[in-house]
């Protein structure tokens, strides 16, 4: 187990290196950098621009630049955001936290609603509730998330009880601690529910499929033949085995959530990593793009490793390292 985690860790470090170099190369392959707009600014002298370019090694060969960036990252120096005019870490910290709140809430909603719905549908297979749920699923993952977000915002604007975007009310700073939390939760409702909807739909489908697969197994027949009650058969025997494949999904789910969160953050003006990356890409803010891509990558790796570990805990049959099949 430990060996597996270490192996996994090493390969992901390599992966992150490749991804970051790739992003770096892409950013540099494009004509122009952030200083182009600075150079056009009559209030800033050409010498200042030249000094900045020298300071950030912008005229060195690509590999040298990447080396500088990498060494700085290892020293905990994430670079400077030219667009926001502060060190990258200042911007990233709060954005990361906000994205985490949004993704985490959606993850809880998705699993909390999707799995029970999937079980329910599998137990009432081909009855009207199952049909209804499958129509709902198809509709839900065919709706563009940003479009759904706009529709919900539109409905909310008519209804008037929920805030339309943003993360805090204007008077947030004056509120007491409890009210601050309440305020944030109110703002969270629309983006989190829109983000979860498509994942709920797909998780529901997968859970239903798994459950149906397990319910056909002979040990379920055996359990029923033993005279166990239906509740015990379903919730103790079937559910545990139907659940295992989903744990592997958790890692990918996280990737999908991050990616989906980006668009919804933009539409609902939620100050997260995705909307930050969009701004950074538009402004050609190299270090900000690099850092947010890297952070997203790190988040994913953590998600994947966690789901691996979780899987060994949930499914005792899986032992990494020992007589593992190819």
């Amino acid at each position, binding site marked *: 187990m430990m060996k597996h985690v270490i192996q996994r860790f090493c390969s992901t470090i390599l992966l992150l290196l490749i991804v970051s170099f790739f992003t770096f190369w*892409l*950013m540099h392959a494009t004509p122009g950098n952030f200083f182009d707009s600075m150079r056009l600014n009559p209030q800033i002298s050409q010498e200042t621009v030249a000094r900045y370019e020298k300071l950030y090694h912008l005229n060195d060969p690509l590999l040298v630049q990447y080396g500088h960036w990498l060494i700085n990252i290892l020293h905990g120096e994430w670079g400077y955001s030219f667009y926001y005019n502060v060190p990258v870490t200042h911007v990233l910290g709060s954005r990361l936290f906000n994205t985490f709140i949004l993704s985490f809430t959606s993850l809880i909603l998705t699993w909390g609603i999707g799995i029970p719905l999937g079980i329910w549908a599998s137990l009432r297979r081909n009855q009207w509730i199952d049909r209804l749920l499958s129509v709902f699923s198809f509709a839900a993952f*065919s709706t563009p998330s940003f479009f759904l977000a706009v*529709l919900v915002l539109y409905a909310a604007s008519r209804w008037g009880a929920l805030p339309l975007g943003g993360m805090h009310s204007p008077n947030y700073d004056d509120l007491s601690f409890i009210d601050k939390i309440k305020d944030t939760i109110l703002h969270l409702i629309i983006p989190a529910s829109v983000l979860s909807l498509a994942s709920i739909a797909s998780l529901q489908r997968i859970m239903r499929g798994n459950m149906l697969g397990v319910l056909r197994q002979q040990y379920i027949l055996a359990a029923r033949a033993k005279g166990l009650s239906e509740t015990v058969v379903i919730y103790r025997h079937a559910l545990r085995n139907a659940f295992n494949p989903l744990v592997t999904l958790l890692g990918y789910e996280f990737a999908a959530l991050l990616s989906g969160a*980006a668009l919804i953050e933009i539409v609902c003006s939620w100050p997260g990593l995705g909307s930050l990356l*969009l701004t950074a*890409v538009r402004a050609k803010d190299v270090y900000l*793009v690099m850092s947010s891509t890297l952070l997203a*990558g790190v988040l994913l790796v953590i998600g994947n490793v966690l789901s691996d570990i979780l899987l060994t805990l949930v499914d005792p049959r899986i032992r990494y390292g020992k007589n593992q099949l190819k």
Partner: protein
Amino acid sequence: MEKINSNSRSQMAIASFRRNHVGMICLWILVILYGMAIFADFICPYSYKDEDRNFSYCPPTAIELFDHGQLVSPFVYGRTLTFDNVHRRVYVIDQTQKYPLNIFKNGRLFGVNAPGRFYLWGADARGRDIFSRIWYGARISLSIGLLGVGISFILGLLIGGIAGYYGGWVDSVLMRLCEMFMMIPGFYLMLALRAAVPENFNSVQVYLSVVVILALIGWASLARIIRGMTLSLRERDYVLAAKTLGVSDFVIIIKHILPQTISFSLATLMLTVSSYILAEAGLSVVGLGIQDPIPSWGNLLSDAMGIVPVIFAPWILIPGLFIFIAVMCFNIVGDSLRDAFDPMFKEGEN
């Protein structure tokens, strides 16, 4: 051994697909959507860049059939622009101006004579007809998915085939590469790739670069599936036979292994097209995809990203409905195809 030809199997699959009513209906809807896109020049009353700023956010025009209680040939009323007490634009129906609806005039299916404007589904901020722009946009949105999938498919088949066939270090290098692409969240990868596309590209170049970006995102998962299938296929006797006959590896992969995986990939392909349509819309909606004035279903919605225009002109949301319909149809057709090609999959449920 009895001669088994894959043809009869796919014929069976097609027959089974045709029995699936929902799948067939969706297939026909897709055919209609593509048809409308191809004949957009004829169907739409205006060109995609035909604008009239006097009709910014003009609401949908109703077709009138009765004039003073009498049935007449269809016509539309003109509109005059006024401002209400908070200086919002209000279009008042002007019953003195009447514009008869022309059918088959100037090579267009329908339209009205200038200065009248006929907005079946309303107008956008620059007074362009949303109905027309939707069908011109369909050309972009519906073709981008197909083209992107075409490229992903070729990449995925080749790389998956090579990885599965050779195994060993080739396999592990290629699969690590796939993992890399799968690991980065799609939207972030899209943004990063888009950052690399020069801003002075013209519309054709932007279109092609969006296709390439989409293709680069999607090939990895397909390659993994193909690799898995190739791993088992390469152990088959007929591959050994081909090898003994001295057929080159490349030909074995292309001619003997990959065709076996086609039926399964076809269903996956349909599902991928729908995800590409969504991805293009996402990229365009934030202004990084297809650029105005060329319409795509994504950038038609970019106006609608602000809540204020939506409240005053809800009809600018109509393009979203088409994204929904197209994506839903591709999903359902893909799902039905998979059921048809892979009866075991469905039996697993029943």
